[in-house]
């Protein structure tokens, strides 16, 4: 996935961290430290997504979102906040925010949420992803390995897509489980291992799909 994202966050270090995380996910980003300059940027430039901190000096996150709605700048917004309070969550979502992430969060979690939101808002843009001779047509549910059609089970397919989308990022088994099998899947992490074995065998990924000790797996590009 690619996209240009605006980070509105008043804490320098957190802003830098989010920037680094987005970079990891292959997104480009800009940082704005307060509500009014964020609004100015939104007005001038095009963004695919806004990551909006709720607690900002002067104009807070809710105000910024309200102003965006008012100016009819319809850019998907994900709130970042330290306050884990249901009423605020509801308020944010009711105002039209796409999601709500409570600090602190893990890098991959942020990327996954962004991915979901962008996928939802850019409908039909799923298209295809490629990795080193493997081309995945997401809409047609087809995998071509060096031009040859490869048969994958639906879960193997989803797992492959998630790996390619997160190339060069180490993914824990838990993260893979929740991303592919869903949050409510009660299976064991062993399920992940067997599917990874299948992918390695079917697509000759023994080298690229690396096991990271005590962590999980990482699909490593040749670069």
């Amino acid at each position, binding site marked *: 996935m690619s996209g240009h994202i605006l980070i509105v966050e008043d*804490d320098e270090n957190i802003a830098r961290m989010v920037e680094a995380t987005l970079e990891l996910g292959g997104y480009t980003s800009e940082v704005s430290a307060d509500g009014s300059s964020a609004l100015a940027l939104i007005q001038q430039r095009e963004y695919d997504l806004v990551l909006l901190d709720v607690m900002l000096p002067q104009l807070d996150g809710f105000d910024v979102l309200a102003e965006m709605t008012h100016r009819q700048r319809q850019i998907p917004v994900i709130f970042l906040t330290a306050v884990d309070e249901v009423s605020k969550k509801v308020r944010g979502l009711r105002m039209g925010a796409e999601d709500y992430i409570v600090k602190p969060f*893990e890098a991959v979690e942020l990327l996954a949420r962004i991915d979901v939101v962008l996928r939802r808002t850019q409908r039909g843009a799923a298209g295809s992803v490629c990795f080193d001779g493997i081309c995945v047509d997401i809409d047609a549910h087809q995998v071509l390995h060096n031009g040859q059609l490869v048969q994958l089970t639906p879960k193997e397919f989803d797992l492959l897509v998630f790996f390619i989308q997160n190339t060069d990022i*180490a993914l824990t088994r838990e993260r893979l489980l929740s991303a592919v099998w869903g949050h409510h899947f009660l299976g064991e992490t062993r399920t992940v291992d067997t599917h990874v074995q299948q992918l390695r065998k079917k697509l000759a990924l023994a080298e690229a799909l690396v096991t990271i000790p005590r962590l999980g797996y990482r699909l490593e590009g040749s670069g």
Partner: protein
Amino acid sequence: MKLWQKIFLLTLALVIVVVNATSLLLLSNNHHLAIERDRQDALSRHNYIVVELQNAIIYQQLVDRVISLDEGEALAVAREVLNRQRADSSLGVALFSDGQLLHAVNQTAKRQSDERTLLNEPAYTARITNTDDATYLLIVSTVQLNGRPYQLLSSLDITSTYHLFAANLDMVRFIGTLSALLVAGILLLLMRGLLGPLRDLSTTTRHIALGELGRRAAVKGHDEVSEVARNLNIMAESIERNVTQLEGLAESRRVFIGNLAHEMKTPLTSILGFADILRIKRGVSDAQRQEFASVIVSETRHLQGLSSKLMQLLTISNFRPSLQDIELEEYIAQLKLALTPLFERSGLRFATQVDSPRLVADPELLASLLNNLLDNAIKASPPGTTITLRATRDTASDGCVLTVTDQGAGIPPEQIPLLTEPFYMLDKARTRRHGGAGLGLALCAEIVRAHNATLQIESAVDAGASVSVSFLPTSAEEGHEQAEERFDDSDTTTSREDGPQPTGARAVTNVQASDIADRPRLPGIPPAVSSVTLGREESHV
């Protein structure tokens, strides 16, 4: 059974019994008197007839000039006497001889003549007898006429006396019932009037118990019930006050914890985020590793500073300061020496002025207080300006006043009262950059409170700020006593306490107050003997 029902029924029963008993007693007494009067009347009339009879017989004897009349003539004379009674129907008379009725006047007497048994009684006998619906008083006596014994029976109609009695009895019953009804009505009204406030009180108490704490009972008059109402109101007020206080405490503690959580989450977000990137990213460059790791280190330091400030806040609230006489000139000179590098780094000048020779305070807490105040001043000051620390004597109280003045950005007036609240930051970004968490002035306020001193902040935008702490004039010994008082009653502190307290810490204070009182006291250092020049000393760094 309810109280009012008990009182009502008892009083009503009592009234009915007393009224009826009294009137019955009076009535029967009256009746007896009437009967007695009738009896006297009957007796006198009876005797009159006897005398008449005897006189007539004697008169006839004299007319006939005989000693004894013959029986027939005597009877004729007696009949004539008796017949005179015909005119008065109320009294009937009958004359008997040896149980035989000789003559009877008036119907009643004839009827009564059946009462032969009376005739055997000796001398006078009176008896009351009822026939049909009439009542008679019978009197029988033996009369010697013409040398022979006769029995004379007179019967007086006393029905009217009995009728009167019956009528009176009816009247008494009527009046009794009427008065009972009247009393019942009055009692009910009285009960309502007297017990109404009690019912209101009960309602009010129930409402208060159900949590309607603002509810008060109506206080009317000065009787016992209104006294209870007054006392209930006093109780309700104190309950309401306590509950409000507790709620306020809980609320400010909630705010404190919320702020604390927020203050912790901010560095934690950076730490977790960067650590996670370092963990999962492939091929992290050296420059990036260094950048990410140094953020992690600095944010961890921030957390460390936060936790140590919090610990200080907690300990000051629970700890009695160990007061000592401090030679201010020497103390401030040392402080200046220690802080010189810091001021040089920030490009600031540090001026001191000591007009007051000594101060009774806890040296460690005083150091923490001055460090925090100077730290704030440094953060607020642009390079090239001067920060001044003055120790002056307050002419009014003769106490010592420490003042830190800067030439920085100043504080908007409406923000000043909020400054001593934990986690309050004038400029969040700048405070963070300096590694602060908004606890410095809260800590200062706590230290000031521990010394029974007062904290005053004066400032205007772009005119710098001046923070002064006024200590009361005390020796070390007195100071200990005052500090002890502070623990006995935390409301007596004179420092500005309008704003919410750092309640996480305050709540513990009361619990541990007794425990602190038991702690061995640190002996105060005897007052310094060396005299200190009171001159003006000013220097620049």
